[in-house]
């Protein structure tokens, strides 16, 4: 496929991606059109979700690497970021929260966004945190964050505890 066409797909992903499952837009753009195989995409998805950093950004870069090396990864990532970047810059330039209607609008946006984030937390917890020890780890991390324990300490402590608990289990299963 010509590079220009690939770049258009990255731009479309950037324009249409919202919410928690943004990776599905990458799946639609590159797997459903058979540019990347399902197996390779699933592998890259696992990497992007395992390592630190925004998973969607990481996965975009890995898709770009697969399709055209470092140059396409950089260009693809830039195009995925571009629509949101322009929208935010425009909002910052033209909307002042000193104006009452803008403040009301952003308050509503905040309520909606926190609602969507809460729903993601509830849905993922219900589906992916079922083992008792997983529930304990999630609760412990949440309590530590709320108790204002530094994030580094939370990540290291919970990470070490979980890694120790699951160290000898095949596939990491309990």
């Amino acid at each position: 496929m010509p590079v220009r066409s690939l770049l258009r797909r990255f731009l479309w992903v950037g324009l249409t991606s919202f919410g928690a499952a943004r990776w599905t837009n990458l799946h639609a753009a590159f797997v459903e059109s058979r540019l990347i195989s399902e197996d390779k995409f699933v592998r890259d998805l696992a990497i992007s979700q395992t390592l630190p950093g925004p998973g969607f950004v990481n996965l975009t870069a890995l898709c770009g690497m697969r399709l055209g090396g470092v140059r396409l990864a950089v260009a693809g990532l830039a195009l995925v970021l571009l629509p949101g970047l322009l929208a935010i810059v425009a909002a910052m330039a033209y909307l002042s929260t000193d104006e009452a209607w803008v403040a009301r609008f952003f308050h509503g946006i905040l309520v909606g966004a926190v609602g969507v984030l809460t729903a993601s937390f509830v849905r993922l917890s219900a589906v992916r945190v079922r083992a008792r020890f997983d529930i304990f780890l999630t609760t412990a991390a949440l309590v530590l964050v709320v108790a204002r324990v530094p994030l580094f300490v939370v990540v290291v402590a919970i990470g070490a505890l979980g890694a120790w608990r699951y160290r000898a289990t095949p596939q990491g299963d309990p």
Partner: protein
Amino acid sequence: MSLLEIVALFARMGALSFGGGLSVLAELQRELVEDRAIMSEREFATAFALGQATPGPGILYLIPLGFRIGGVPGAAAALLSFLVPPLLFQILVAQRWEQLSRAGWVRAINRTLVPLSLGLIGGSVHTLGTPLLGDPMTVLGLVLATTAALMVRTSPAVIVLGAGLLGLVGVL
């Protein structure tokens, strides 16, 4: 904050952002609002809202945060220092993933990341949601938005922008 301090802060956040860019919201708010008093709670929440109302990665809220701290260079430094180190690390790891993913300790850490990242996201929900609980209509809006996101198969953008419109007309 100097540009170097911005880079150091956001690079640290990027390195700890297991589960995505929203998992570090609680820590960022503590750093910027409570410890350093660079911005108000409301300004922080508005930056988050702005990031969620626009398409693309959810971490674009870093731009208004960085801009508030250090103007255009601050915005660029915040975004790039958050994104680039994990990205480079990932590309390095990806080349050896088949070998690494067979190691027991990698599987054990991988198994731990889901509950850990969910706990961090829960912390972000607490940080952003608690200040909204004072007003009954806002609480109702929060419940409705959460329920809609759970029950209705629609884009989150519809819910976020719909809530924005309700705010605009003074319902929330």
